[in-house]
């Protein structure tokens, strides 16, 4: 079973990693997306993530299943957090395990790249000078402009 979730509580990376793994796997990797303290030369103090929750749940679950199909096993776990996050906090965690490392790296990369292309989540940067702005995003493939 793949596992995908949108949460508001802080992400515990080791709990995500614990959702994958098997005696037949020789590789397990954990990717973390983290709020950084700068953007385009401006100091960033934090980030707010908003989601179209009902749709994001199904899109994220679909991405995990697609990654598992590419990987050839079902050991893919992904969680994305929403709400107010401080610098250094984890916004997304992806864990994958597989018999060989190439599959795990490929599946993990697939999940984060697809999240950036089409997961209906938005983030607003809070700058150290008190201003804030929505981060320029990506238009989902095949729709609109």
């Amino acid at each position, binding site marked *: 079973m793949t596992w995908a979730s949108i949460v508001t509580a802080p992400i515990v990376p080791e709990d995500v990693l614990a959702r994958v793994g098997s005696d037949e796997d020789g590789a397990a990797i954990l990717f973390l997306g983290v709020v950084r303290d700068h953007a385009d030369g401006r100091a960033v103090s934090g980030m707010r993530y908003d989601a179209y929750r009902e*749709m994001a749940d199904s899109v994220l679950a679909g991405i995990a299943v697609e990654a598992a199909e590419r990987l050839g096993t079902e050991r893919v776990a992904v969680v994305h957090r929403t709400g107010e996050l401080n610098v250094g906090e984890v916004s*997304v965690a992806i864990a994958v395990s597989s018999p060989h490392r190439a599959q795990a790296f490929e599946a993990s990369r697939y999940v984060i790249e697809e999240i*950036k292309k089409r997961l*209906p989540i*938005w983030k607003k940067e809070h700058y150290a000078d008190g201003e804030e702005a929505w981060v320029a*995003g990506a238009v989902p493939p095949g*729709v609109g402009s």
Partner: protein
Amino acid sequence: MSVSVQTLFFAAYRDLLGTGSLSVQLDEGATVADLVRELRGRGAPFDGLPAEPAVAVNRTYAPLDEPLGAGDEVAFIPPVAGG
């Protein structure tokens, strides 16, 4: 005959319009493109929406020529920025 659809706005679109949802009446047989035209035709601030926005109908991405039915949920999706 007209049908009523529920529109949802997120992030920058929500800020633009000052609301996260609106009920809109459309002619029967209307498409997503007709809905966009109806909204943009209301003038400011609605004309700040793109002429060809990304939308999801009932929580699935849909093209502008997708026909709409009574009770459909149509979300206007600004460029996404997860991760």
